[in-house]
């Protein structure tokens, strides 16, 4: 009895699916599945800025108004049609949505994913369905360290370099650093960030002590007790990989209690709050932007176009998730067009993959080199600087740039091994 019903439902499902998926799409469109957070706590700081950047860039690409070498229309002349999906619901849900995108809605490629959990789960499905997939934002190095994939690329650098560079920055700027403390969210990104940071710190300066390490729940919002703990066990630098609302709440609450008057905060994602909370960020705060993005982006034609267009359209300068989105879109476009050039016609997916591997290109954040993870994982330089608002205008001083090979493990070495082995093979400028 129950079985015949299941059958009926599934048949109905197929029928509904068939009608919906046959919606009119011109054959010449490049259908691109775009997955970012549109709800929940990651939507505001990451998901929607990324979506905004995608809207802006896709429109410009389709009109052919980008600076060279991206000035040709669409992708190989095909108009890009985005299909948006909310990244909410967890890895299982996203695996299911990914299948829908590919099999039911027939996208040519999928680009997206902010959550590391999703980035670990999706590649397995992508390989099964043999669909070109570009991860744009998630940071966990595990994706290409634990596996190698044919169809999956990540155009954003891993989170390892955020924290390795953070420790290097401390070495270069804080002489005689005796103690650090940490406050990170109690989930993978928070734990990994802290471990990478403190691991590198102990390699570079073995005598550093840890005053306290706090791991409050993600989205907790109230950090009174943690701030007290940081005050009681004081140190010179407080490391935090908090992002979005949590980072801003911690900044506000810490500043109101004078936490940062004797201790310098090091915020690995702090760049996103730089303009929003300019009045509240303590002078001298060390800010990271998870790569050469935002205020750390180089002065190139692409960046000035992007900054100007984004600010004009959305009323605020773009932050790193927006940069990473543009970078991913441009990489995808370039790989497609390089492949077309090579085969002198419409490239197959395998052609595109071959062109994408070990690709080097310029994005609004500077040079992207797909030279890790067998040509599937990008590496970039990493930048840190200190916040200043002295002239009433938020700015960055004491900027230090670290080349990719200085803050990223060499090919074939996992991040945790690399740090454990004392950053062997790092080439610094």
């Amino acid at each position: 009895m129950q079985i015949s019903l299941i059958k009926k439902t599934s048949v109905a499902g197929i029928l509904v699916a068939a009608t919906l998926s046959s919606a009119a799409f011109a054959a010449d469109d490049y259908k691109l599945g775009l997955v970012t957070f549109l709800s929940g706590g990651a939507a505001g700081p990451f998901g929607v800025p990324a979506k905004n950047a995608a809207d802006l860039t896709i429109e410009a690409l389709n009109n052919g108004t980008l600076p060279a070498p991206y000035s040709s229309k669409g992708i190989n002349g095909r108009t890009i049609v985005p299909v948006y999906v909310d990244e909410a619901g967890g890895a299982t849900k996203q695996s299911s949505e990914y299948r829908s995108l590919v099999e039911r809605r027939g996208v040519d490629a999928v680009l997206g994913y902010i959550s590391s959990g999703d980035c670990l789960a999706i590649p397995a499905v992508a390989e099964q369905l043999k669909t070109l997939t570009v991860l744009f934002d998630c940071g966990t190095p595990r994706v290409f360290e634990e596996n190698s994939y044919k169809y999956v690329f990540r155009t954003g650098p891993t989170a390892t370099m955020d924290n390795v560079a953070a420790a290097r920055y401390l070495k270069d700027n804080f002489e005689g650093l005796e103690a650090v403390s940490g406050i990170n969210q109690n989930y993978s990104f928070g734990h990994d960030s802290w471990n990478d940071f403190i691991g590198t710190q102990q390699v570079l300066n073995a005598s550093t002590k840890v005053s306290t390490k706090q791991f409050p729940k993600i989205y907790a919002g109230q950090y009174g007790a943690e701030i007290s703990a940081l005050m009681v066990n004081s140190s010179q630098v407080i490391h935090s990989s908090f992002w979005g609302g949590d980072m801003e709440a911690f900044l506000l609450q810490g500043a109101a209690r004078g936490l940062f008057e004797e201790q310098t905060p090091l915020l690995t994602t702090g760049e996103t709050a730089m303009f929003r909370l300019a009045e509240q960020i303590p002078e001298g705060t060390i800010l990271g932007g998870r790569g050469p993005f935002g205020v750390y982006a180089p002065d190139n034609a692409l960046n000035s176009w992007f900054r100007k267009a984004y600010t004009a359209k959305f009323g605020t300068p773009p932050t790193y998730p927006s940069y990473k989105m543009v970078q991913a879109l441009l990489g995808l476009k370039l790989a497609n067009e390089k492949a077309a050039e090579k085969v002198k016609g419409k490239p197959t997916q395998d052609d595109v993959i071959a062109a994408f591997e070990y690709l080097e290109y310029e994005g609004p954040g500077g040079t992207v080199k797909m030279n890790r993870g067998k040509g599937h994982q990008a590496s970039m330089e990493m930048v840190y600087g200190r916040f200043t608002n002295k002239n009433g205008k938020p700015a960055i001083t004491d900027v230090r740039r670290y080349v990719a090979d200085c803050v990223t493990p060499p090919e074939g070495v996992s991040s945790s091994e690399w740090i454990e082995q004392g950053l062997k093979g790092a080439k610094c400028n």
Partner: protein
Amino acid sequence: MPGTKKLLLIGGMPLLLLGSWFLPGWLGFLLTIALAKGLVVLGLLLLMRAGLVSFGQGLYYCLGAYTVGALGQYLETSNVLLLLPAALTAGLGVATLLGLLICRYRDIFFAMLSMAFSMILYGVLVKTMTFGSSDGFNVAPPSLFGWAPANDNGPLLTLWLALIITFIAALFVWRYLRSPMGYAAEAVRENEIRVEYLGRSVQRIIYTKYLLAAGHIDPEMAYWTTSGEFVFIALVGGTSHVAAPLLGAILFELLRTYAFEISPYTWQMILGISLLGIILFLPQGVWSLVERYQARLKSS
């Protein structure tokens, strides 16, 4: 159960398994997930029949998944004949222990206490770096002594397993509900006095302890929202028949997928309105529609 119906059921199974070969991959995957969830809700149905609602069913869901995942990693096996019994044992063990404690509670307190335990598991897993903290880890597709059937869209064994196990579990629950024990559960709800038996009812839920389907597991499975989803499904389907949770789970998954598609920005609203609509207009769940239809058939 009338003979013809039984025959239909037994004959339908191979047909269904065969038919799954031709399902598009996304639907097969969706069905697998829906069946896995339906199975959990089937356990929930037993509790609800006894007037108890658990907001911590995610605990067992997660426990089963992690047992399979951990064994797969350390023993490097993907053999379901090894993994499933292991997951079942783990679930049974924990359920028996917790059942002893929880069976003293009812109503909201039962719901909240079960939630608390589930959240504790969540907390432990998030702290466990070997299991990838909140990111979780991937699980190899299952096999049967190395045999892993697949079509173009991916492995099929999980879907088949889900179908077979769900079928067996549903049959079992169906029989159970018609046993004196099952009626006793109804009685329990009727006068709200707990019977020692509830501890045993919790044990039944361990039939749901598996999730090979997703291929990826993370601590969110023990988070309260996952358990809330199970209760959602139970209400959507209804509790009057063993097939209701399965129907509810499939409908829920389809609804959510299409809500994501139709309105990526406001899909929660679609879910919320559907939930309220069902509670308001179909208080016995979607299954009541089937019952109405059956009643009409009988009367005509």
